[in-house]
């Protein structure tokens, strides 16, 4: 047991706040809303080519199909540019398209059958243009998005020169589709005076509101965007939900009729961007012990046709290229390439998984070169006291990494299994058996948006006079359980059961100027805002309770307010200190000295009658952030979520197929609010990532059109792909006091642990090939694995 790390004490594990409606099928998603009379169903016309001139379009025949009502094109868009960071993307393309899937028109019809026939009648004449369909091509043509950025410490050139050992190499990382089960969807209801009510499956209601308003040419005040719940998001609905809602809104505005756009999975996968592909070259210097002395990496990412979030994603990749390891001399340069693919976008982990893939892979190589076990190399280089400043200058505080390595090494029986695998592989080589691999990787994921202004949240807490509570925040519930966690925070503050709290749909009329529910920050910023709101109300209620204690019951507001027979109680200065004397527990409000108590609901009623506000709007900003993007230095994150995972795989030497035999995960999530929800994020994130590094293969044709655009060709993990043995555990850490309730964010970090499956595959391949360094792209598909295992059989004749 390393560093005395202990398992978690028992922690609440209440079911997800929507679980009852989930299991009964009553949870309502956008496309479950009943169709209104006169509502139009929308479909999209998009480019089949990566780049083309739009020579002519003819909707005459389409509009003659009975039931087809209207078409919306670029001409109908008031402000036809949008973009989260750079405003470089048209809502609807008008003269030229820059990716296969770029939308040029929206068709509205009264029935799905009419829509289908109408779409088939749209005539478009395209003139194909040369397109950029690889990072190499983009680099050679200097087709870039944004400037090259660099984060550096020390003198990497000199340190490399002086390193006793060096290695260089390249790493190719493909993208992945989010494959949220609920495809992008929006329903827009036109209201009086040009107002639009937008129901969108969006992770960012505020941006969706803004993009809709600008496209339709109305002020923000006239658009309300509501997101009740999402059937999964994973980053794919952070920026890219907005144009989908705009399409429906433009149709609603033009026709004055409700309009619905619910993409098919095929259209969704063709149109929307993916995880950014990366192409990385690196040079690493180390000594014979395997201590890394210098690391120089150049990262290119494929941003697709438009900027979207790619520059921020690149930044996070650069900030995570150290991962859990201290590297004295380090330089990471990053440049986003502009190509002619769908604009790539946020996906759980943002750039993090790419940076971490790089360094974890390099450590495997260093192990081969030094003849040591990769775990020893990792432990040697791990951040520890004295070696705890990152390449961007932030100190790794509350650092549990060394202990996590030690504990998982023991818990997963790493050493004895390594021995077994070594002898197993020896036999496999001799007898033609299947090689096995084992690898233990880490994650240190920075929590906070790297863009400072996004680190704010707001929440509206309303107590009704029966003592029940409604909470609205900027956080969007997409399965991760953010609403459940915030409900728990509020329930605990008021001393009420969860059943007294109702989380309301996220809506821009209650919570405006919000940040996307992204960067794992949902609970951190919105939960903290809700807690602040609760505290303000509690101060008032506590002050009233103190007054009531000294007031004869006959003079209480409930006895006197109606007829006005007694003066109102004035709260006075006691509000500021009231909370020190009063506790909220078990539906009671009581003085801490037990001299007085009353029911929460009774106190609430008295407060209302005494004209004390029972609502509060809380605003929270993450303190102490100071990352200078131009210098690449400063405190980028409030804290780090850390974890380790050990994965064992077996490769079929005849087919290249992978079987994941065992996975052990150990994470530090601080003091979780809800154990079940957190562990669900851990297993879910891990398996989602496992798909990215193994079976999920995006295949495009020569026109840049995605061929694997449905689950028959794009294979996310099924239940049969899950590890035969799968242990996910949390350690006990009360030390993350900088965050709300001492929790740690969990959404993205566990995904990065999936890289242990990929490095285990590499381990097996390299072990089979006499411990030579053998590169492996992501995903490690069966074909790539078989090629690596038996390259001689793939020599083209």
């Amino acid at each position, binding site marked *: 047991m390393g560093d005395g790390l202990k398992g978690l004490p028992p922690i609440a594990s209440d079911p997800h706040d929507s679980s009852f409606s989930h299991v009964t099928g009553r949870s309502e998603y956008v496309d479950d809303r009943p169709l209104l009379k006169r509502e139009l169903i929308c479909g999209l016309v998009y480019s089949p080519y990566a780049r083309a001139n739009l020579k002519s379009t003819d909707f005459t025949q389409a509009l003659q199909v009975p039931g087809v009502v209207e078409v919306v094109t670029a001409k109908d868009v008031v402000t036809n540019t949008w973009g989260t960071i750079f405003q470089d993307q048209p809502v609807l393309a008008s003269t030229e398209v820059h990716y296969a899937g770029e939308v040029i028109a929206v068709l509205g019809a009264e029935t799905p059958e009419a829509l289908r026939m109408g779409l088939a009648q749209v005539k478009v004449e395209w003139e194909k243009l040369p397109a950029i369909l690889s990072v190499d091509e983009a680099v050679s043509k200097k087709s870039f998005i944004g400037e090259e950025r660099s984060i550096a410490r020390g003198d990497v050139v000199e340190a490399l020169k002086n390193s006793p050992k060096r290695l260089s190499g390249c790493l190719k990382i493909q993208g992945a589709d989010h494959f949220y089960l609920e495809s992008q969807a929006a329903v827009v209801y036109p209201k009086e005076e040009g107002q639009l009510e937008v129901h969108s499956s969006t992770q960012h209601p505020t941006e969706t509101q803004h993009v809709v308003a600008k496209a339709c040419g109305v002020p923000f005040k006239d658009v309300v965007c509501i997101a009740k*719940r999402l059937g999964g998001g994973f980053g794919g609905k952070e920026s890219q939900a907005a144009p989908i809602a705009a399409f429906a809104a433009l149709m609603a505005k033009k026709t004055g009729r409700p309009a619905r756009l619910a993409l098919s999975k095929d259209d969704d996968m063709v149109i929307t961007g993916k995880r950014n592909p990366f192409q990385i070259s690196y040079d690493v210097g180390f000594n014979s012990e395997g201590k890394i002395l210098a690391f120089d990496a150049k990262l290119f990412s494929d941003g697709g046709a438009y900027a979207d979030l790619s520059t921020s994603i690149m930044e996070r990749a650069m900030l995570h290229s150290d991962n859990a390891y201290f590297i004295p001399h380090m330089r990471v340069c990053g440049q986003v390439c502009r190509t002619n693919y769908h604009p790539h976008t946020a996906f759980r982990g943002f750039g993090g998984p790419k940076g971490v893939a790089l360094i974890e892979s390099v450590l495997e190589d260093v192990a081969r070169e030094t003849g040591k076990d990769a775990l020893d190399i990792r432990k040697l280089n791990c951040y520890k006291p004295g070696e705890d400043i990152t390449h961007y200058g932030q100190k790794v505080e509350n650092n549990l990494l060394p202990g996590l390595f030690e504990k998982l090494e023991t818990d997963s029986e790493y050493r004895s299994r390594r021995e077994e695998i070594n002898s197993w592989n020896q036999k496999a080589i001799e007898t033609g058996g299947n090689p096995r691999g084992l690898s233990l990787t880490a994650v240190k994921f920075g929590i906070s948006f790297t863009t400072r202004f996004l680190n704010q949240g707001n929440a509206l807490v309303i107590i009704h006079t029966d003592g029940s509570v409604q909470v609205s925040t900027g956080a969007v519930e997409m399965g991760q359980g953010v609403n459940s966690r915030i409900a728990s925070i509020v329930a605990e503050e008021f001393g009420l059961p969860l059943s007294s709290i109702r989380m309301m749909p996220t809506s821009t009329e209650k919570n405006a100027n919000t940040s996307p529910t992204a960067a794992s920050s949902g609970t951190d910023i919105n939960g903290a805002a809700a807690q602040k709101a609760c505290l303000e109300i509690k101060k008032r209620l506590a002050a009233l309770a103190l007054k009531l204690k000294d007031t004869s019951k006959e003079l209480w507001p409930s006895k006197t307010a109606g007829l006005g027979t007694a003066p109102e109680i004035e709260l006075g200065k006691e509000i500021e200190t009231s909370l020190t004397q009063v506790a909220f527990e078990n539906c009671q409000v009581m003085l801490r000295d037990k001299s007085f108590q009353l029911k929460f609901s009774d106190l609430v009623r008295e407060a209302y009658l005494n004209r004390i506000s029972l609502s509060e709007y809380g605003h929270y900003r993450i303190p102490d952030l100071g990352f200078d993007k131009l210098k690449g230095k400063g405190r980028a994150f409030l804290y780090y979520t850390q974890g380790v995972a050990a994965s064992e795989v077996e490769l079929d030497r005849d087919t290249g197929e992978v079987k994941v035999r065992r996975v052990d995960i150990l994470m530090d999530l601080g003091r979780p609010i809800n154990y079940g929800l957190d562990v669900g994020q851990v297993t879910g994130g891990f398996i989602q990532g496992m798909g990215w590094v193994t079976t999920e293969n995006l295949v495009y044709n020569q026109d840049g059109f995605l061929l694997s655009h449905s689950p028959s060709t794009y294979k996310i993990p099924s239940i049969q792909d899950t590890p035969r043995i799968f242990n996910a555990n949390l350690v006990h850490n009360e030390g993350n006091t900088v965050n709300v309730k001492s929790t740690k964010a969990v959404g993205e970090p566990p995904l990065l642990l999936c890289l242990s499956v990929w490095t285990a595959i590499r381990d097996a391949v390299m072990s089979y090939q006499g411990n030579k360094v053998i590169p492996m792209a992501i995903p490690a598909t069966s074909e790539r694995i078989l090629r690596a295992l038996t390259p001689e059989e793939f020599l083209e004749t």
Partner: protein
Amino acid sequence: MRDYSLIYLNGVRKEVRGREALLMLADWLRKEEGLTGTKIVCAEGDCGACTVLRAFPQIDNNPLQFEAINSCIATVAQMDGSHLLTVEGIQNGQELSPVQKAMRECHGSQCGYCTPGFVMALTGALEKHQSLDKKTACNYLTGNLCRCTGYQPIIEAAITAKQSEEHSVSKRYLTKDTVADLSHHQKESLLIKSGLITFFAPVTLQEAVQFASENPGFKVLGAATDMGVQTNKGKPLPKHLLSLHLISELYEVRKEDTRISVGARVTLAQLRRAVEKTNPEFAVFLNLFASPQIKNAATLVGNIANASPIGDTLPFLLVSHGKVHVASIEKGSVQKREIAFSELFLDYKKLALKPSEIITHVSFDETCQDQILKIYKVSQRKDLDISTVSGAFLLKTSLQGKDKKIEEARLAYGGVAATPVRLPEAEKALQGKVLDSKLIHEVSELIGKIISPQTDLRGSQTYRKVLAMNLFKKYGREVLHG
């Protein structure tokens, strides 16, 4: 002649006619019946979000039980004679069912979008087993994708849930009267018209082949696990649809001597149960085939009629002397003939059937004691994936003498040409010889020379070639070393 499809939906009797009857079941449930718990995600039977339960008295599962199917790729008309259950129908009053309760308490739902599908698949499983172990649970859930949970909480829910009498949906819904009503209607032909489309389900083969000859371009609608997908992806339904679901003789699996004969309406699930003893290798292979939802609906004949070069059952049928039995009408009477598998596949998706012929049966050999048969399938994902390459290999060795000469060899592949193929040259190279590693190597090299597969999104030409060679090597090793 009926003009409506008769179904029971969550216990309520429905006669569905015209346009509504030709909607996909999931669309009908969501849009016409307002039952939006059933979700549509992929619209191609690959994700299970649309899973509903179906009890169909014609299928031989004694006692009659609910089985999971995908509702997104079947028309309402095809559901004629079924009792259908959606997620809205499984609660017992206000109380959650054991599956719902376990899914809720084990955190089996996150975003909730796949949840109704999982709940239904598990409810179906618990109708057959009182409780589930991990392996069984996973097998029942192969056809359901979840992107949130990593499946662990769902597995936990599956092994936690215990069936009880009062929660059995079969007990609650499959009453004597209901089943009698459904069965009674299966004795009357069905004709549904909507716009230009005619859906005809006769009760005799004679009427079926008559319809076929009168309506060129007709299509037999089996489970529609392929046609339904194409319709969802924008291809309109064919104008003349023929369903054989009211012809009771087509539901039989018969053993005649050493031949197994399978009717056109026999589902893959039914087939797997039927061939467990006669063709154990094939039965095991059928476990890897598609999802439970697909197997509960799709037929063996459908897999053949679809004529895909990567149909999973085809290599097996090629090495097992498979034959299709077809019928047509000539001068007012039913004419039957057989086509051997070796003659069946003309080109990519093209079979040696005359335009008005329909497949009524398929037959194949029982697997004998002296035959070593193995069936392989390689795909990017192990389960519920279309194969990159598949193979079936059969060796018959003489039982006398200790050197065990190969009397006969049959090797068949899918995914290495425009049609599934046998490899006579490679078979000949094995005949009369004794299998050893040298021979395995030689034959696999030969296989690599004979075949010329294509590159597509599932794999490159070279990968397919190496796979084809390696599958034979794997087979050889397994034969030699057990």
